């Protein structure tokens, strides 16, 4: 299945901003991170269709997954 992955902040370093990528069916957010070489504890926020999801959330074909390290401001 195809997932659009968007990366932000330091996750972009040596990777990409946005890419369509193939993943096996039933892949989780954690699986996507692993495939990108990102340690799971580094994840700050993951969003699918503008909703917060967890490492265990299963992504489905055609979704957009946005991944952020721990960031803040105000």
């Amino acid at each position: 299945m195809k997932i659009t992955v968007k990366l932000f902040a330091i996750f972009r370093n040596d990777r990409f901003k946005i890419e369509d990528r193939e993943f096996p069916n039933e892949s989780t957010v954690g699986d996507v991170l692993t495939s990108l070489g990102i340690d799971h504890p580094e994840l700050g926020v993951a969003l699918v269709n503008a909703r917060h999801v967890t490492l265990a959330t299963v992504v489905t074909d055609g979704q957009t997954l946005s991944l952020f390290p721990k960031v803040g401001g105000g």
Partner: protein
Amino acid sequence: MNRIFRVNMKDLTCKIEEVPEAWAGHGGRGLTSTIVAAEVPPTCHPLGPNNKLVFAPGLLTGTPAAQSGRMSCGAKSPLTGGIKESNSGGTSAQQFAKLGIKAMIIEDKPEAGKWYELHINNDGVTFHDASALKGLQNFDVIDAMNAKYSTKIGVCTIGIPGEERLMSANISVKDSDQKIRSHGRGGMGAVMGSKGIKVMTIDDSAGKRVEIADKDKFRAAAKVFAKAMLDHPVTGEGLPIYGTNVLINILNEAGGLPTKNFLYGQCDHHDKVSGETMHDVIASRGGSTKHGCHAGCIIQCSQVYVDENKEYITSGFEYETVWGLGINCMIESLDDCARIDNAMDNIGIDSIEGAVLLGVAMEAGVLPWGDGKEALRLMNEEIGKATPLGRILGNGTKSVGDAYGLTRVPVVKGQGIPAYDPRSVKGIGITYATSTMGADHTAGYSIATNILQVGGHIDPLVKEGQVELSRNLSIATAAVDSTGMCIFIAFPALDIPECLPALIDMINARYGITLDGDDVVGLGKSILKTEKAFNEAAGMNNAHDRLPEFFELEPIPPHNVVWDFTPEEIDEFWNF
């Protein structure tokens, strides 16, 4: 810090007083709000003789504690009609602390047309004719004061909008790079202007190091505290690299980024003005991606933004300002946004109010959406010169909405709503509604838990848990605002268990006292209640703790949600 400087602008006198017992445990916001509540008649005109302008450094300001150099400024606000505290970086807080000034209270006003420089040193305050400075904007005032004294002189100044008492006018504080930090929100510059004060200069050369009761205990706690700042990924890595503007992309992805005067929750060109882009632009041009607003800041969320020739454009270019210009006004050029930010520093208006009011002005057709050049002209030539149009604009977001008969006017208690949509980030909506300061994201930064997943997670789109979240954060923030600490210590404080105890230990070691966590919560609660009581006596009631009606009527994409809290649910905030 053991003295109160009481300045009277009618007699041009300064009395040096002892600190009354009741004020001894207060600093920063707690102290300015306590003094305003005790001494300012709540129904007075904010620009009249009975309002008082109060400055107070925090409880820890002047010590080696990281992040502790913020100055609070308080008064009755001309913008909200209620109590106001606005804190700023720059050098003034640490200079006051060195001079042992726990607070400076400025009373009354001189005869119309008189302008003064207040010169503050170890002996008190002297009053100097400042008519030659009238009509100068902030950077020229700073240059003039640096030439008169030296670059070490502390400077707090107003531009023409402050002289003309426009309600978006701020007070600009010189930082150690001779640039500007601001007591931004609530029109404190108009209050300063109403008192005939063009500039305050601070000479701390005869000052002393702040005394610490238990140095060993202080040193140990300060170390733990600083380590927490550097260990937390937000304060140790995210903020120094990207600044606060890292929030553009995450709010966009979450659908909470108010776009085109709060019509949409996402913006197509978000990445053009994002923190990531800003970092790359600054780095490629040879500016500074890291910068502190005062000595002793180890987080360094600020930056110096330069043009292609490495010439300074602006610094302290914060998320809320970039959002307001780049997203809410659709100005896609980061350079244009930076120039407008610098113009707002120079003329001396709040860069949040300035950006939010421009969005409403665009909706009114005063200028086209996205027109950064015209926005810059309006700042410099209209608001900056207080022309008739400049007065309509410079009196703030509500003034523009009223003048043009609009309903999508994002304000609470007259103050412009910043960078997070309350329909799709509901916790911050409770803070906007209930804050004693008018719409103020910093008063109880629910974004941390709603969006950033710091301090746990509460779904931004559900109502459950939001009131309690906002209440707890607001209480904690009132206490932290009393220490002189910058707001970003909240990130480590929410996640790292040793952080808050270390902060309390530093206060205890500094004063030789024994506060515990409950005392600090109690302090936060009593500050909020003091502020609320002032607002009620000034004529506010529960009906002022509400968001504008359009948030209930207009669903915001992509979530297509409205603001759906009942009045009773909002009022639960005050149940403590």
